[in-house]
């Protein structure tokens, strides 16, 4: 049955006016409610030298003490340590993962320092891609481990960016949203800070590093994002200790010459960072990660694997053909490996069999040997027995002979007398 489909093209979509309240304006609420019940994921990567204040800043940002021991400076290479936490505020559950770069900047040769970081980020994208490519998949309750924001901690030298920083940021800018921050900002004086910030920004621009741009397309956040962008990179101070200021307790660092208040905007940009990272742009960070960085990774990866989109004229779906080819290739490999395994197995069995046969033969030989020895022994013993018996017999004979002799002697004596007697009596008594 032929089916005629009449469809108005997109451009002709008419705007209809409603004559009453329909009620679909609750749709955003319906959507948000679903997300709240599932919970949100947010993953932050902190890149910076050991001791620059990454853990303290995380503690300060999220108002808690994340348990972790400070790292030593002796790490042989850079490794990434990820920790997950579940935070809850009112009815929002957040699965927060903080990834730390342990040992960054400590080695003498830092050529490969950026590599573990890039590998980690790619691995998270890969895991998501694998899930997406599965035949039976469950994306809607997938625990997203992709990095949504990368806080790059710049050391407060006051001069410019280190070459390690430039190289690392250049490698990361197409993979993750980079937010550069100046750590331990209480070591820089205000006038130096301004110069430092502009130097950093100009260096980033001249080296073509793409840092995260706070979105300015939506009216409600455009203004605040624009004003905040001016202060990049944010100069932050972290502290979990509280000091009494006036009549309130506030997070601060106490020095002999004064108190640096974390949440005072004149002292540092911590509040700005918190605003931008969490309160205004968290959702945008997640979206950018998914729609830009992940899509780029996916595109590169699929192209690398041999797939390509074709133009609409030629047969569509070379993706699936290549997929099919790859699948066959994979299956073929599997079969080959299976054959190999089977052959190896057969060989092993044969070997074992031969071994066992050998052992059996040995055993038989031993048994034969034993039997022979046993027989020999037996024979010896029998010989001895026989000897003994012979001896006994001889002895018995001798004894008998001796006894006989004795009795004969007695008898002959008696006989002699008797004989003498008998001689008179019986003539037929013969002597022995």
């Amino acid at each position, binding site marked *: *049955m*032929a*089916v*005629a*489909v009449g*469809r108005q093209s997109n451009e002709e*979509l008419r*705007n209809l*006016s*409603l004559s009453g309240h*329909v*009620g*679909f304006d*609750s*749709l*955003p609420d319906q959507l*948000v409610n679903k997300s*709240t*019940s599932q919970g949100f994921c947010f993953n932050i990567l902190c890149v910076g030298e050991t001791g620059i204040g990454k853990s303290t800043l995380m503690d300060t*940002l999220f*108002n*808690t003490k994340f348990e972790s021991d400070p790292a030593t400076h002796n790490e042989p290479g850079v490794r*990434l340590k*990820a*920790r997950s*936490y*579940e*935070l809850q*505020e009112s*009815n*929002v559950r*957040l699965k927060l993962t903080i*990834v730390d770069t342990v040992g960054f900047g400590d080695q003498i040769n830092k050529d490969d320092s950026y590599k573990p970081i890039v590998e*980690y980020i790619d*691995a998270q994208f*890969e*895991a998501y891609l694998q899930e997406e490519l599965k*035949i039976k998949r469950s994306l809607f309750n997938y625990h997203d*481990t992709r990095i949504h924001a990368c806080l790059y901690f710049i050391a407060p030298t006051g001069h410019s960016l280190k070459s390690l920083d430039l190289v690392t940021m250049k490698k990361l800018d197409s993979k993750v949203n980079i937010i550069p921050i100046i750590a331990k900002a209480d070591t820089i004086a205000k006038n130096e800070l301004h110069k430092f910030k502009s130097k950093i920004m100009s260096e980033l621009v001249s080296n073509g590093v793409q840092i995260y741009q706070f979105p300015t397309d*939506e009216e409600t956040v455009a203004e605040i994002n624009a004003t905040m962008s001016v202060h990049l990179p944010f100069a932050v101070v972290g502290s979990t200790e509280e000091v009494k200021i006036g009549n309130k307790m506030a997070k601060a660092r106490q020095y002999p010459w004064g108190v640096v208040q974390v949440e005072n905007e004149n002292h540092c940009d911590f509040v700005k960072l*918190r605003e931008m990272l*969490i309160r205004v*742009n968290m*959702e*945008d960070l997640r979206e950018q990660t998914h729609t830009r960085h992940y*899509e780029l990774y*996916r*595109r590169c990866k*699929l192209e690398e694997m041999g797939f390509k*989109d074709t133009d609409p004229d030629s*047969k*569509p*779906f070379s*993706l*699936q053909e290549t*997929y099919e080819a*790859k*699948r066959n290739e994979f299956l073929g*490999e*599997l079969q080959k490996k299976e054959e190999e395994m089977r052959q190896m197995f057969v060989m092993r069995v044969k070997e074992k069999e031969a071994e066992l046969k050998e052992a059996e033969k040995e055993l038989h030989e031993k048994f034969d040997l034993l039997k022979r020895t046993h027989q020999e022994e037996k024979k010896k013993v029998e010989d001895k027995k026989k000897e003994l018996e012979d001896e006994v017999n001889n002895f018995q004979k001798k004894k008998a002979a001796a006894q006989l002799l004795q009795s004969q002697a007695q008898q002959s004596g008696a006989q002699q007398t008797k004989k003498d007697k008998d001689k008179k009596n019986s003539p037929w008594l013969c002597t022995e």
Partner: protein
Amino acid sequence: MSELVPEPRPKPAVPMKPVSINSNLLGYIGIDTIIEQMRKKTMKTGFDFNIMVVGQSGLGKSTLVNTLFKSQVSRKASSWNREEKIPKTVEIKAIGHVIEEGGVKMKLTVIDTPGFGDQINNENCWEPIEKYINEQYEKFLKEEVNIARKKRIPDTRVHCCLYFISPTGHSLRPLDLEFMKHLSKVVNIIPVIAKADTMTLEEKSEFKQRVRKELEVNGIEFYPQKEFDEDLEDKTENDKIRQESMPFAVVGSDKEYQVNGKRVLGRKTPWGIIEVENLNHCEFALLRDFVIRTHLQDLKEVTHNIHYETYRAKRLNDNGGLPPVSVDTEESHESNP
């Protein structure tokens, strides 16, 4: 023995088991603002919703859709010219509009199926409909497997199918059962008793019970499906709807009359005015609230997470690949050899 993995996958640093830090938040962080952020984003991008209406002609499908969305979404057949009205085959007509309310923009597409059940021989008349639904899944799948994907894949999949049951008062017709049996596996079906003003209250409740029983006996899972209830709360809420209210007995109208000093949508008869939005008269308001105000997002999600995924899994499993299917649905389709 080495692992048989086609390419080495770098193992990510394994995160520790999530530590739950709950009550000791020393101050306000601002995590809950993500709700507001999300809401703003979704309002900006807008929503798509595709609703299909299936039923014999004259059951009031177009009127009901117009009443639901309070606008002239479907053009009713004004002239009853027999030759031009009933098509020889089942047609699928999809018409899209953009409606806006409270800052929320919705692209609403109503898919009409004229000709369904109107022939003398109605065998397999659900096939074009099933084909259309699968075509939409196919379109989406194609977009999704592209290397260079669009930021937002246009969603033409049917989120909801309203099936109109004739108010005979007896039971379901074989055609109804056949259709729902075939399609309840691919799309969310909401059965609706049309022209409910022909039944009295007792007849209505008896009919509804019989229909529910028949659907259960035939193993037809209509939306909200029991197996997709996520938690106890959902289950109790949906159970109530499934066992008491559904199928909704509705009356549609786009004419307004004056009743008790208010203007209401209704049907005027010699024996009184039937108010469409009056819960004592018919269950239109329940249907509207159910579909639009509470379960709209859920309808889309079940379509995306379950029906579409089932289609995708089946498709990718068949021969491990997809045969070339032309995107342009107006051409005839090649079948898989």
